[in-house]
């Protein structure tokens, strides 16, 4: 299941009232351990707002120091943010996420009290998606174009982040909608590696303003296009 697929989908409660569009997914680092990363990030709650414009900028966060006119504008816009715990989700449908219960209009936090967050909190959209991935040698290894969520198998447990997804297979559906999905399919047929490219979260070393890996990028099988351009174009030019 792709995390970015959630973004933009509407959340409706049991009575059909729309609470807003999902603009972020809150993760907590207390899921089952994965690879050498330690405890994995698992889904804690969905964050919805109406409207959701400008939330990526993160201007509503306290630690952001200014400029105050922008913060003031966006604070009003985000007065209606609703945070819904994952276990209140009834079903995930094509265009929306349906909750089990009916919400009061003034409820801002739903079901959070059941789940004390036992680890580092990370908002996927704000702090993980679209970040630069850097390998152990400090070289660029792509962007976090999407995240792969998987169920660990325990009944009732929320999904955890299993892998970083990169490349056209992951990016195209996010940027170009239906057309993007077609592009991704074509790329998958043309490229030699499985698509979309994935880096298991088990080889992530740490997450800062970028994502650092424990391995060199050439060991990850994600450099297909780069290798092709190098072999067929760049290495033909003297001095490369």
């Amino acid at each position, binding site marked *: 299941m792709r995390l970015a697929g959630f973004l933009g989908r509407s959340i409706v409660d049991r009575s059909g009232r729309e609470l807003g569009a999902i603009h972020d997914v809150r993760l907590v680092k207390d899921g089952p351990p994965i690879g050498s990363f330690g405890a994995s990030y698992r889904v804690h709650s969905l964050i919805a707002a109406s409207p959701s414009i400008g939330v*990526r*900028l*993160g*201007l509503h966060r306290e*630690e*952001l*120091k*200014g*400029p*105050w*006119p*922008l913060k003031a504008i966006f604070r009003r816009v985000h007065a209606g943010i609703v945070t819904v715990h994952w276990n209140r989700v009834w079903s995930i449908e094509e265009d929306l996420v349906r909750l089990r219960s009916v919400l009061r209009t003034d409820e801002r936090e739903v079901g959070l009290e059941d789940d004390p967050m036992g680890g580092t909190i990370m908002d996927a*959209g704000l*702090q993980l*998606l*679209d*970040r*630069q*991935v850097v390998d152990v040698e400090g*070289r*660029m*290894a*792509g*962007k976090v*174009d999407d995240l792969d969520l998987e169920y660990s198998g325990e009944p009732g447990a929320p999904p955890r982040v299993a892998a970083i997804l*990169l490349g056209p297979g992951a*990016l195209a559906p*996010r*940027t170009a909608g239906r057309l993007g999905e077609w592009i991704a399919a074509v790329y998958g047929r043309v490229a030699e590696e499985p698509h979309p490219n994935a880096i298991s979260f088990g080889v992530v070393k740490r997450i*800062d*303003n*970028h994502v650092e890996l424990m391995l060199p990028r050439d060991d990850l099988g994600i450099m297909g*296009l*780069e290798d092709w*351009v*190098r072999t067929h*174009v*760049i*290495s033909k*030019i003297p*001095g*490369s």
Partner: protein
Amino acid sequence: MKKFFEIFLGILTAFGGFVDIGDLVANAETGARFGMGLAWVVVIGVIGIVLYAEMSGRVAAISGRPVFDVIRERLGARIALIDLVASLLINVLTVAAEIGGLALVIQLATDLNYLLWVPLTAAAVWIVIWKVRFSVMEKVFGITGLLLVVTAVALWRLDPDWGRLLSDAASVGPPATENWATYLFFAVALIGAAMTPYEVFFFSSGAVEEHWTRRDLMVNRANVYLGFPLGGLLSLAIMAGAAVVLEPRGIDADHLSQMALPVAVGLGRIGLAILYVGMFAAIFSAALETSLSAGYTVAQFYGWQWGKYVRPREASRFHLVVLLSIVVAVGLVLTTIDPIKLTEYSIVLSAAALPLTYFPILVVANDPSYVGESTNSRLTNAVGFVYLVLLLVVSIATIPLMIWTRAGA
């Protein structure tokens, strides 16, 4: 001592590398049409680029994230992609303008048709990008660009009425012979020329290329706060030269030859020769920067390896984009569109694209997860926000003004 020398060189590089074909054309044409009447706009443009270049340099030095990384991280993949397409188109147009400008300079010096020189100069630009080390490339062409100071010397030799120049510069509003629409259109062009997005893309990527860290913030500030305003003074010298020599005679600065006229009149052959070298170096430097910026923006959006700090084979896609940008730019120039026209379009379209570039920079320069404790001061935020509003207004007004005034005809 070594640090002092490094700072000194950095200032000179920023000073000499400030003016490009866009600034040359915008300031000369404006001086010929409006005298010094729009000089205040140059001041505004320079303050704007100083402010935002400092921010983007600080962000890059502390977090290692250049501007386009920030644009994607803060605006999201979809909007950033739109921004990328727009920026890339304008970027390639600007590369074409710079290469066309270089060919025009050689034509002016040799009286051989500029089209002949286009492939040669483009190849030279690419070879320098391919082979020459980043810091050497920057410094050599930037510092040689200092020869443009000949425009200020020529101005002084023309012995103008300084009082009149200053009072014109301080006045706001078009002269009797022109209307507000054309006046504002030229103002928009001047802002576009002073604050062209490629400048911050290049500046912040350059900070990473040169492995700047927190300790280099001092160098960052010196380059920007001293080097850029000095470069701005050169822009004003070009404007004043046109105001003194061209405007009173009703001469429009439509051709590079007319833009060089104030120096020819003021200093004669030697001045002209120095001007040619200075123009060539400054425009060559800009051609390098814009070509690299095309590569930087695409690679930084997709997360590819970029930069001259690794061998070309380690950043193959990046170098392919740079090469293709130069090739497309050459194609554009070879369609025989007047390079001056190309320049005019590039600076005006740059003006339209400014807010998308500068908005995320302002946000991120306040974010401790990028800059730690070095977040913006209240003054920086206040001025930065005012500029953002200004740039938004400029951006919205650009295309209507261009259509209304038929591109300043």
